[in-house]
Structures are given as C-alpha cells and as structure tokens.
C-alpha cells in the first residue's frame, strides 16, 4: 500500500511528482471505500459530482467543502469511535468528525512520522503552554484539547505551564527550566497562548529557552490583529528567550493527523502522505505556484469519514515545489488567512432590535 511506503520514509522527503503517483491510486481507493460505506457521501458523488470517482490526477478528485462537516455527520465506519469537535465560538456550528480506532491509529502514526522530522527519535521533557483543564473532559473534546492530547505523547513528563484561569504559573515554568537546564526540551502551545502567556509574561532574558524546540499552532488571526506576523514572532522569541528552533504547523480537525509543518525557511511543508492544491477562488481551477487561492487539503489518513479531499475556506499560495531546504520536498505553503465572509443583504434583519 502506498500509504505504508510513504509513511516509512522521512516525512518531508518524497518529491512532488513521485508523491502524486504514489498517492493517486490510494486516493481513488479511498473514494470507493467511502462511497461503499457512507450513503450520504455516495449521494454527494452521484448528485453533485455526477458520479465521478475515477480521476487521472489528484486535482480531479472530488472534494467536500469543509463547512459540510458542520452541517451533517459523515461516517464510513460502523466501528465504535469518538466524535471530534472543532473549537468554535458561541453560536457557531462546530465540525463533527468521526474517528474510529483504525483512523485514529493512522493519525497517530502520521503525527509521529511528521514530528520525528523536527524532534528526532528521543522524547524530550515537554512544557505545554496550556492548562490541564483543556484535556480534562474527554466527552467534550475540543480541537485545542485534541491537539494538546495528540502532542503530549511526543514529550516526556508533560508539564502544564498555565493554571486553570490560563495565567502563567511562574514557579512551575521556572522549576521546569532549571530542572532541564543544558538538555534539549520541547515546548508546545497554541500560537496565541505562546505569545500572550509566555512571550508577553516575561522580560528579555528572564527565561533561557535556547535549548528548546517550540511547536505551535492555532492560526494567526488573533496575532495579526496585534500586528504580529510570523517573522516578528520568530524574531521576538529568539531575542527574548534565545528560542530559535520554532515550528508552526497548520492543520484542521477535519483532517486531524495531517499537519503541515514549518520548515527552517518559514514555509509550511506537506508531509509525504498529504498534498495541497491551490484553487482559483471563483472558478476552482488549480493554480500554479505563486498564485493565491483557496486551499484544498488532500490526505491518505481519513478512513472513518470521507475527508480525504477537503476544500477549506483558507487562502494560501504554493511558494515552492521540492525546494530541498534541509532536504524537505513537496509543496511549501504560505497561508494568507481566511476567505473574507460575504456581508448578507436582504429584507430580513439579522438582529431583532435593528
């Protein structure tokens, strides 16, 4: 199986052309797999995609819009499993993603293979820039909780840096750092929490994190509102804490396990068993590198729900294919934020008091 071939190789090393050739047959098999097991998906293929389930290239694969997972439950497995929910603000619909043991295992293996590319083989002591509370209720697991839980297995003796009210626990942080002085440590947290609860909570030179590798994720929206682009983020952490090995990642609950990891050049790379397609926002035709468009994510992981090709509502561009930076191959992606939402017009006022 091509998934096994792809995951066996170091995570970012399969060149684009070879990767597509290896992925395509298994993607087609996935489409058939989901068609047979998920009636709703079969109806979408027949009625929206007019029956298409053979494609000559990855770009021609039928895909689902990411917001569909907020509207209906789609599952391709009769096994027991868990329903993952995206984090969402009050009143917003959340995605519901069904994950069974098989898919869960694929996700874990994929994450391990991906993280190995920056963390190496051995587990480092791990400081989580979050509160223990975020993982305490398995019945109501948010994407943030799932992310924390998923990352915890990559470190040793995970320590939570924030208290229940999300305030930095200075004693815990200091004793973690002094206990691990001189050996490699790993930090993980959501980008906004890393910035507000770590960077902003300490002064220059107050903590020495020169031995740390930071993995962070969660989107740039809140930081962009504070005018903190990725370049400033990297520079500021380096200056304040001597923290220079920083890897952002991009992924979503609808394709959990498939994460795009930031290389040393600051771009996000697709691991071997994934691909990314940029589409014209209006025509949805695939765009060449350096053109901005809608991001479609392709992954071999999802078998318990039909999420192997998803049209996101994020904008991005491919900046390079097979750049070879640190030996990393495949597509290097730059994210340009969310597709702006249309303002609704109409006779019916949204707010009653209007």
């Amino acid at each position: 199986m091509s998934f096994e071939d792809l995951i066996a190789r170091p995570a970012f090393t399969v060149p684009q052309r070879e990767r597509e050739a290896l992925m395509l047959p298994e993607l087609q098999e996935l489409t058939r797999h989901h068609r047979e097991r998920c009636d709703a998906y079969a109806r979408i293929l027949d009625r929206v995609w007019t029956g298409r389930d053979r494609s000559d290239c990855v770009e021609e694969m039928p895909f689902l819009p990411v917001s569909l997972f907020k509207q209906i439950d789609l599952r391709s497995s009769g096994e027991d499993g868990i329903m993952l929910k995206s984090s969402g603000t009050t009143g917003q619909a959340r995605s519901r993603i069904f994950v069974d043991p098989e898919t869960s295992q694929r996700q874990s293996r994929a994450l391990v293979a991906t993280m190995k590319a920056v963390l190496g083989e051995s587990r480092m002591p791990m400081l989580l820039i979050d509160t223990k509370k975020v993982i305490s209720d398995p019945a109501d697991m948010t994407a943030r909780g799932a992310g924390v839980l998923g990352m915890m297995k990559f470190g040793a003796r995970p320590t939570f840096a924030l208290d229940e009210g999300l305030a930095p626990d200075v004693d815990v942080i200091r004793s973690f750092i002094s206990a691990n002085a001189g050996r490699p440590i790993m930090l993980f947290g959501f980008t906004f929490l890393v910035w507000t609860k770590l960077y902003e909570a300490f002064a220059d030179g107050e903590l020495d994190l020169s031995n740390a590798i930071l993995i962070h994720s969660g989107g740039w929206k809140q930081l962009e509102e504070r005018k903190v682009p990725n370049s400033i983020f990297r520079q500021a952490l380096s200056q304040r804490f001597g923290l220079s090995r920083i890897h952002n990642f991009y992924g979503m609950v609808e394709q959990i396990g498939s994460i795009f990891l930031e290389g040393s050049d600051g771009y996000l790379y697709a691991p071997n068993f994934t691909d990314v397609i940029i589409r014209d926002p209006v025509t949805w035709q695939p765009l060449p590198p350096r053109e901005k468009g809608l991001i479609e994510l392709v992954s071999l992981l999802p078998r318990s729900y039909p999420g192997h090709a998803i049209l996101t509502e994020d904008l991005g561009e491919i900046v390079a294919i097979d750049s070879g930076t640190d030996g990393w191959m495949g597509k290097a992606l730059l994210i340009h934020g969310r597709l702006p939402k249309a303002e609704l017009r109409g006779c019916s006022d949204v707010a009653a008091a209007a």
Partner: protein
Amino acid sequence: MERARLPFCAPFSAERIQLLGRYAHQLQTDPRWSGSAPVLALAFWLRKAAVRRMAADFGARAHPQSIATARGIVFHLPPQNVDTLFLYSWAVAFACGNINVVRLPEHMSPTIEGLLDPLMSLLGAGQFEDVFITYPRDAANISERLSAISDCRLVWGGDEKVNLFQRYPLRPGGKSLMFGDRYSHAVLSAAAVAKLDGVGLERLAKQIHDDVRLFDQRACSSPHTVHVLGMRDGADAVYRLMEAVDALARQSPSTDPSHGVAKFAASCAIAAAGAGVSARRLSNEMTVVELAPGEQRGLSIGGGFLSVRAVESVAGIAETLTERDQTLSWFGLEPELFEELARQAAVRGVARLVPIGSALKFDLLWDGYDLLAELTRTVRAQRGI
C-alpha cells in the same frame, strides 16, 4: 414627546408630486448611480409620470361623497440591509401627505448617505417635516415613544423584529403594517420555455436573472424554488434556460467566493439528505438543485441558488403554499391555468402573482396590504340623505 396638532394634508398634492419627480430626476442623471440597478429601479418608480399615474389611480377609486386625507405621522422601520427600500416606504407615505419618521441603520452605507443627501435638500427647501433618524439598536424607549405618537407604523424585517414592535402601542386608533419573513417562488411552463427561439430564451433568462440577482436573491420577493410544469419532457429546455441565466450572471459577477463555497456546501448537504436528485454549480454565480420527488421547496440560500421542482399540475404548486409565501413570479401559463393558480394561491395566503422579471418591482399592493388605502384616511362628507 408631544404630538403636535397639525392639519391633515391632502394626498398627492402638487408639491409632493413635484418633489418626488425632482428627486427621481436627480437620481437618474447623477453619474454616481449609472451602474446601480436598485437605485435606477427606484428612480424609475418615482419618476414624475409614474407618480402622476399613481395619483390618477388613487383619484379614480375615491368613494363618492368622501374626502381623502393623510393618516398623520407615519413611523417607518425599514430593513437594515436593503439600501433602497426605506425610500419606497417613505415615498408612498409622503405622496399620501403624511409626516414621516424613518429610522435608518446606525451605520449608514455610502449608498444610503448618497441617496439621502439630495432628498434632505429637497425636503428642507420645501419645508416638509419628515425626519430621517438613527438611534442605538438597544434604545427601546425611543422606539416606544415614537410609536406612541404615530398614526401608522411600517415594520419591515424579520418576524423577530415584527414581534418586538408589537409590544409598543401606537397612538389610539393607529395601525401597524407588518412585513415579516416571506419566501417566494417562480413558476415556469417547460413547454413554453421549449417553444422559445434564441431571442425569447435570452429575454426570459434576463427576466429570471433580474428576479434572482437583485439584492443577491435575499429580498422577500426573490424566488428560491422554481416550480416547473412539464419538467419530464422539458428538462433540457429548462437547463438551457438556467445556463443562459448563468451566462448573464457571469457577465457581471457579484457572488463572493465565500458564498460560492457556502452554496456548494448547501448542495452537498441537500444531496446527502436525499432532498435533491442533482446539484449543478453552473459557475460561482449560479447553482441549480433539482429537488427529489416529494420535496416541496428548496432552501433559501440566496446569492444565486435555485431549486427546481417538477410538478404535474397547478394544484401541485398551490398545495405547498401558505401565508408565509409572498410572490409567485410566473412564465408561460395559459390564461386558464394562470387564473386557476391565482385563485388557489390567493386563498392559501400568497400575496402576489406577477409576470417573471417583476418579482422585485415594488408594488402598491404588498404583502396583502393596499398601501395607498392604508396610508390615508377616508372621511365621509355626505351632502344629503
């Protein structure tokens, strides 16, 4: 707020007709609006000849031995998101001689401001007392006090807004016109579509395009479901028509990419639920879903999203309608069929049947109200026994 004692004006006075005509002329000749279909439609509706015709119609139906006057103070609560509707609401009441209080959104769009500026000058020069106001959305006491001095109130917007204003009484004897949530449809005869030549098909496509695209298909009268009589033999013609509508839409694209994705998600959800037998994204502008047998209506997604429903008879259309349905814009029905549809639809509570292409044209008969009658008083002036 004390209600001033003012004389009741006569409807359609010369100054009022003249002011409306001047305003229409300014809008028609201002290059700023040359590309704005909603503003040009408003200006056309308010042009001098049209208002004169309105006045003549009003005069023609006067009761014998009666005098018509304005109702008094009219409080308008237009929707927040249709930039031009407040002017239709205002203009009819103004023509009828009323003093108007029009509440505008707190954050006025440049369109609203641009429409208001010349009107304020005209009203000021003519010493009219109409006021256009804004106040915070939570200032319920203002809504309450304005209602208390009003003889008539026009509430446009959703049911929630309508219900909210039910709480505030008007002055004794005042009346409230409520324009709540409505859904609208189109009705086509596939056989009539199939008979059209190229020019006829283009013309029909343009009419549907106008009904669907103005206000992004989110006005109460914008059609969402297209009931097709004779779909079985005429499906090709109907899809040719839809493609022609899409081609027109692509000439002036207006659909945001995020809404394009939302329409696609809706298509997938409808297909997944089995409610649609096909969903075609003709382009980012237009999506056409064909409803499964047994489905009565499509979702009001808006922004270029039509649900085609095959029906066997006029009764098959009428039986799905309720008083929540507003406009049926129709094409190609034989006169007897149209009469039958109109009769059946009217008793089920539908408010308008109009030829296709006219769905969005503002009408003095709206949501079952005869606006000229509602906005005037009729005083019995009996000469003898």
